[in-house]
């Protein structure tokens, strides 16, 4: 058995870049002919010079807006595409060599790409994976039992994949990806399209798997709950550049908070910005209807109450101000001078709002911390 020195990085990425070349089509018929006869190509730099290392057993969140380069990075690390320049090593292997040993040691789950057989039950697909990865029968049975119980899909193993819900299919995909007990797991948006309960179940499972099996997991997600609840380290990519790499706690600076307030009067965000001096980008309005999941009965009740011609109660929005604890009093005073406060509270700043701002500004301080400003 090979021994890895304590804390030797399981993944090391050194000055990795990746660009793609693609033909551009102009508008209309003229563009079609130009593409046919004289195509124009442009180079897109999906990943600019990126360097980092990841320790064994880490749970790392890779986040960024669409097109930030996170899936490209994941594909390089999994060995699907080579970097244009620089060097990547995973478990000591050059991923793009895709040696058999490397393939046995890693797994990639892409939320948008199904790998199970649509018309067959999951067990048939798992049997094939057992043969491909040469998993001994007893271990296979034990793992399948553990994984299907943890993910609560044991009763569905004999059901045709196409008859399963999206969440159930995703869980089966995950089982298929983990049956060979990989040392490094790449998860590309595993909770995409899942309902709250299914996503929660999947997160619990991933956390348990990471802790029990000491597998290194790298996860990309647009769902900040995934990152907040699972990852001890976050890497943020913007336009192919790593703009943050550290603990999620470091993103939220000390003393920063979120002021929640409901006012009797109706104000729009620009007005509130004028009154309080808080930038518009740091004020969000959430109306109750935005979040509420009304069931049919509630809808019917609401219809009944307005049937008599009377207008339904106007929705009072809740405003959130991203600010500092010292500034709260000043903001409240300013607002009370212009209206009546119905309800208020101070909350911890959400990771989502911090990241939203980083996507927008992309400013990172010298210490590697996001420069979150009011």
């Amino acid at each position: 058995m090979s021994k890895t020195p304590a804390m030797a990085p399981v993944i090391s990425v050194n000055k990795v870049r990746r660009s793609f070349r693609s033909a551009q089509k102009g508008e209309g018929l003229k563009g079609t002919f130009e593409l046919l006869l004289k195509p124009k190509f442009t180079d897109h730099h999906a990943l600019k010079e990126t360097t980092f290392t990841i320790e064994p057993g880490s749970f790392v969140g890779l986040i960024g807006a669409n097109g930030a380069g996170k899936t490209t990075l994941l594909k390089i690390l999994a060995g699907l595409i080579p970097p244009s320049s620089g060097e990547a090593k995973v478990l000591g292997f050059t991923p793009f060599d895709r040696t058999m040993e490397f393939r046995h040691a890693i797994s990639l789950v892409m939320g948008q790409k199904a790998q199970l057989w649509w018309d067959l039950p999951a067990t048939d697909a798992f049997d094939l994976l057992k043969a491909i990865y040469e998993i001994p029968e007893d271990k296979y049975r034990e793992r399948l039992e553990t994984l299907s119980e943890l993910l609560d899909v044991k009763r569905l193993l004999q059901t045709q994949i196409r008859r399963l819900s999206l969440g159930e299919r995703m869980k089966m995909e995950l089982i298929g990806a983990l049956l060979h007990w990989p040392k490094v797991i790449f998860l590309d948006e595993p909770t995409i399209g899942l309902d709250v309960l299914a996503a929660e179940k999947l997160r619990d499972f991933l956390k348990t798997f990471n802790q029990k099996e000491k597998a290194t997991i790298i996860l990309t997600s647009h769902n900040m709950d995934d990152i907040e609840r699972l990852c001890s380290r976050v890497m943020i990519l913007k336009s192919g550049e790593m703009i943050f790499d550290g603990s999620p706690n470091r993103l939220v600076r000390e003393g920063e908070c979120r002021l929640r307030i409901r006012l009797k009067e109706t104000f729009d965000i620009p007005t509130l910005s004028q009154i309080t001096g808080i930038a518009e980008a740091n004020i969000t309005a959430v109306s109750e209807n935005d979040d509420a999941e009304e069931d049919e009965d509630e809808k019917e009740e609401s219809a009944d109450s307005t049937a008599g011609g009377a207008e339904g109660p106007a929705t009072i929005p809740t405003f959130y101000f991203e600010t500092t604890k010292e500034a709260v009093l000043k903001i409240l005073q300013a607002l009370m001078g212009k209206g009546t406060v119905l309800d208020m509270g101070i909350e911890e700043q959400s990771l989502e709002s911090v990241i939203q701002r980083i996507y927008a500004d992309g400013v990172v301080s010298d210490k590697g911390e996001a420069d979150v400003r009011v």
Partner: protein
Amino acid sequence: MSSASASPRGVRKFFHYEWRLAALKNGFQDATAYRIEFLLEVLGAALIPAAIQWVLWYALFKIGGQTTVGGLTYEQMLAYTFTSILFTQVRGGDHDFELMEMVRSGGLSNYLLRPASVVEFVYIRGLAPKLFLAGLSLLIGVLVSFFVDSISAGRMVAAVFLAVLGNIIHYQIGAVIATLSFYWEEAYAVLMVKNMVVQILSGELIPLNLFPASMEWIWKSTPFYLYVYGPTQYALGRWSHVEFMNAVGVAMIWILGLSILTHWSWRLSIKRYLSLGG
């Protein structure tokens, strides 16, 4: 160590046949998941071309008054048509199109990371229903051999074997062409043209005897005649054993050459894979 490798598990590990068997099993289950669909596909593919050819030969011989065409009588022509149907069913499917689409759409990514050759995996998965049809063709052929003097059971077995070799060649050529999609993003037209050429030069539409002697070199210089024409000729006793063994030898050479070409074309092209989507 040596005892371990000589054990059944050692043998299994050495030949890695377990995943191939599992892929074959799943491929068959997948193809037959919808029984009626599967049967209609097989019957449609077999009966419609046969019916068209029957009408054509009937028009030529019975209405047109021909006694022989390309040296074949009406009865010989019909014998060719109905025997060739069996081998047409065995000839390669459209798994090369599947490979091309996987490259284009990024679906290949799911398979590239598994410790098994993706080209082989796609072939074996698609081979399962073809092997079933080969078995069925063999059964029909052997049954017919009891009633038709010109067909022998032994020749039928050998002819199906040649048709299976043709199936391998067909996929290998498709797999090489599919690598064009790494460069052009699309190889549909090339694969379509290949299939059209195969339909003519494999002998599944017309017997290759109909080609004038001066043009024989065209079909003889491709391996396509090994798919349908060769097995049919041998099954009907129109090829000698020597001619058959020659054909098997030629098929083996094609398989070997194409194996090398497939290996290298994929090894080179995969560097251009973009893994789109996701």
